[in-house]
């Protein structure tokens, strides 16, 4: 690896390789009941009748709840609850009448807004009994005709304008080449390996939830509001989360519903979403249709970059893919125009999915640039460097640091880009066409306030506590590594406790902000501990360990807190991570089979704190990019709006055989304006651009351009 960073082995790996790591559904107490939901088979519709008495009569069925039973559940809807939940995200940007009414919650009314909506809940002694009861509920749905709703032109979202046109200071010559193409990306499902689950256990007036969430405090606040009790009576625990990718970053109704069920029945209840539920009940990435228009002079300088986006959301939700964000700032065209248009459909509410906006947006923009380079007869890297934005012209700010040029250089060198012939069909291997393609990635680097508590015990142990979650990112390990290195203690002394809403505040594990938010707080806590120790033991000496100094001062333990302030949005600098993907593919065009044979990705994420964890993160994002380019596509039934691919057989995701050895390089240059550690987050930066790099490699292999994902047989099959 490059740089001088060290890699502490993932400290929770032992728990994970032995099966000892406990996830939300592993924490069922002895008397725990199982809740399963009946799903509406079509939408939009109205529930005309429901017959649950047969189901209720099955021995072992404790109760059945429908929208008629919301009083028994004390299950309501209010603007205050809505504002804390996933259904609300984006509604302020949309600002249409539907955004101002109540958001969707299951079991509130007889209205079916999307297929897969929960219309009844069975609570039973076992999953087998619950399934039997579900099959005995009779439902009559009446299809309703949706009122046509006008397309919405949303206001600012994700700290960027959704409608914006401006002239930059960048100069260009007369237009030599222009192109305008439409790019389409499919509906994609997060499908983390752990289906979301919530186990709710009441103890008197307090409730504990074992929940799979990326944000325990956000979950606590939503659940408390829903239950109508004070937040300090709700404890949310998520020490281990089996992946999220955004699906567990917002708070969904079921997390509160489990607590309502357990309260109504008086016994613990575990509600685990089925794989089919995961396609509708915790968000997804909606499909997009994007038009990119480029004009360039004969040297490849962009005269115009226009990016128009058509995206979808649900009937009452708010989230939509802000695909045009990077187009505002990544390349210096003389004129830039970005627009978004959102339409409402009888579908479930989408939600952020690893690099929302940038991921589909970069497919369109980075494919368009490849097309432009080919038209101009210019190398795709040269075209990008010709239009390299030395500063962020959209926000009118300098970059805090931008090592993109070095990413291009490193990646090109490693993959052997200079051997590439820009003419398609120039490379072959074992009877298959070979192609090389590249694309740029960029993603914001935010940071929010966080607090970390550090407790030194006289016995030698050091306990670090914060409510941040580790969803596989390695947060637990990064924190331990920092304490070990800064305080010169041994790994066996350090314990990191995460994922408990009662611990000091930390942001949700999303939007690549955890490292830059929580690590500076840990650094501050380490400094505070040393300062506090100096105060109680003012004459250091004798080369004593920290806990020995504590003993000398006559204390049993010492508790300090460190805080970080995060980055406000009105900074003087623009904080972004950058990178360049290089992909080699092999294509057997007789059968349309494409294999990604090599990936080299060079990343500028500031200083890398643990190269092994960072490499794993980037490889994970790249794997998502492979899926997006070649196989992932959720499909709805044309009339019922059911998702036909709500399982892992019909919604294909990359498996071992799809993923080659992935080479990840880091420029590893500290971004000291970001924080004293120089580190930016890297949970998402590896995904944008990857699908475009694959498509561009396919074009280089066969000369056919894929503007729709996943790449279709039309592009991949050809004359042998």
């Amino acid at each position, binding site marked *: 690896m490059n740089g001088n960073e060290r890699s502490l082995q*993932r400290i929770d*790996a*032992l*728990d*994970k*390789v*032995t*099966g*000892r*790591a*406990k*996830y939300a*559904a*592993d924490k*069922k107490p002895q008397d725990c009941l199982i809740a399963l939901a009946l799903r509406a088979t079509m939408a939009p519709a109205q529930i005309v009748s429901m017959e649950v008495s*047969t189901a209720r009569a*099955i*021995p072992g069925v404790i109760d059945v709840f429908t929208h008629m039973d919301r009083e028994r559940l004390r299950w309501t809807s209010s603007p205050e609850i809505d504002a804390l939940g996933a259904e609300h995200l984006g509604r302020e940007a949309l600002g249409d009448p539907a955004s101002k009414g109540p958001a969707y919650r299951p079991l509130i009314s007889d209205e079916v807004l999307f297929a897969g909506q929960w219309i009844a809940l069975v609570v039973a002694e*076992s*999953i*087998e009994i619950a399934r*039997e009861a579900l*099959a*005995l*509920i009779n439902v009559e749905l009446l299809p309703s005709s949706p009122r046509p709703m006008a397309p919405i032109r949303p206001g600012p979202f994700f700290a960027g304008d959704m409608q914006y046109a401006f002239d930059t200071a960048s100069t260009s010559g007369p237009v030599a080449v222009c192109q305008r193409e439409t790019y389409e990306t499919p509906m994609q499902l997060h499908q*983390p*390996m*752990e*289906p979301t689950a919530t186990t709710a256990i009441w103890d008197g007036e307090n409730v504990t939830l074992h929940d799979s969430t990326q944000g325990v405090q956000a979950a606590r606040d939503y659940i408390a509001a829903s239950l109508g009790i004070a937040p300090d009576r709700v404890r949310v625990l998520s020490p*281990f*989360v*089996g*992946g999220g*990718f955004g699906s567990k970053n917002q708070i969904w109704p079921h997390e509160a519903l489990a607590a309502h069920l357990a309260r109504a029945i008086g016994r613990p209840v575990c509600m*685990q979403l*089925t*794989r089919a539920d995961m396609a509708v009940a915790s968000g997804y990435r909606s499909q997009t249709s994007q038009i990119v228009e480029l004009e360039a002079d004969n040297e490849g300088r962009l005269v115009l970059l226009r990016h128009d986006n058509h995206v979808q959301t649900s009937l009452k939700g708010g989230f939509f893919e802000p695909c045009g964000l990077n187009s505002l700032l990544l390349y210096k065209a003389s004129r830039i125009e970005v627009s978004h248009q959102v339409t409402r459909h009888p579908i479930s509410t989408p939600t952020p999915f690893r690099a929302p906006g940038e991921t589909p947006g970069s497919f369109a923009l980075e494919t368009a640039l490849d097309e432009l380079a080919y038209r101009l007869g210019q190398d795709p890297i040269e075209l990008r460097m010709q239009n390299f934005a030395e500063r962020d012209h959209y926000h009118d700010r300098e970059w805090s640091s931008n090592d993109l040029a070095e990413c291009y250089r490193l990646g090109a060198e490693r993959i052997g880009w200079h051997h590439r012939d820009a003419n398609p069909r120039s490379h072959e291997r074992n009877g298959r066409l070979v192609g090389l393609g590249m694309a740029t990635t960029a993603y914001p680097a935010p940071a929010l306030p966080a607090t970390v508590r550090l407790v030194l015990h006289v016995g030698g142990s050091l306990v670090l506590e914060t409510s941040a979650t580790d*969803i*596989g*990112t*390695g947060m637990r390990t990064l924190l331990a590594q920092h304490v070990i290195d800064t305080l010169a203690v041994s790994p066996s002394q350090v314990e990191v406790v995460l994922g408990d809403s009662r611990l000091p505040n930390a942001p949700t594990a999303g939007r690549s902000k955890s490292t830059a938010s929580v690590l500076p707080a840990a650094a501050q806590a380490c400094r505070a501990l040393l300062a506090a120790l100096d105060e109680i033991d003012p004459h250091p000496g004798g080369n004593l360990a920290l806990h020995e100094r504590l003993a000398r001062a006559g204390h049993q333990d010492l508790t300090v807190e460190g805080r970080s302030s995060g980055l406000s949005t009105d900074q003087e600098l623009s904080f972004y991570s950058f990178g360049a993907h290089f992909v080699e593919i092999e294509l057997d065009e007789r059968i349309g089979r494409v294999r990604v044979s090599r990936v080299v990705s060079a990343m500028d994420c500031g200083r890398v704190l643990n190269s*092994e964890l960072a*490499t*794993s*993160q980037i*490889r*994970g*994002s*790249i*794997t998502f990019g492979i899926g997006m380019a070649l196989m992932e596509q959720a499909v709805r039934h044309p009339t019922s709006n059911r998702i036909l691919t709500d*399982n*892992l*057989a019909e919604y294909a*995701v*990359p*498996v*071992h*055989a799809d*993923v080659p050895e*992935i080479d990840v390089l880091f420029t590893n240059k500290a971004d000291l304006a970001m924080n004293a550690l120089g580190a930016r987050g890297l949970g998402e930066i590896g995904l944008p651009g990857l699908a475009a790099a694959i498509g561009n490699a396919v074009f280089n292999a066969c000369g056919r351009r894929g503007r729709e994902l996943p790449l279709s047989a039309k592009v991949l099959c050809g004359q042998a």
Partner: protein
Amino acid sequence: MGIAPDTASETVRRNVSLRLTVNGEEVMIDVDPRRSLLDLLRDGLGLTGTKKGCDHGQCGACTVHVDGQRRLSCLQSAAQLNGAEVLTIEGVAGPDGDLHPLQTAFMRCDALQCGFCTPGQIMSALALLTENEGADAQEIREAMSGNICRCGAYNGIVAAIMEVANGAD
């Protein structure tokens, strides 16, 4: 909905008595005849190391060994396992807690992120090592393709299996 509830319920509500061996220990238990081995392990025996990823045999997270062969426990009816020997992730380490070389290789190679698919990956890989001793990387990828890792730890998993296959530990 098509089922005559009374008779169906009467039939299914008769539990089945089972005697089987799980991780070397004899277990006697009455199970619902509809119960999967996965739900028996997790809810009946408290062995939650085996994970429910899809419950439809599509993801591999619930892989265990039945009589020495890898099996998707969500598709295996528990009632059919009278006399069987089941090995789960909890039984992979030695009785004294010594990790199997594959477990330490997974740790060394960072062959996991969220860890949810890891028990299934390890159970599959353990079986693979006996099924196909001299497997190369490509054969390992093919043989492991029933075990999905959404975090994308595939490079590390293959590296870990290769290390053990080549006796690196």
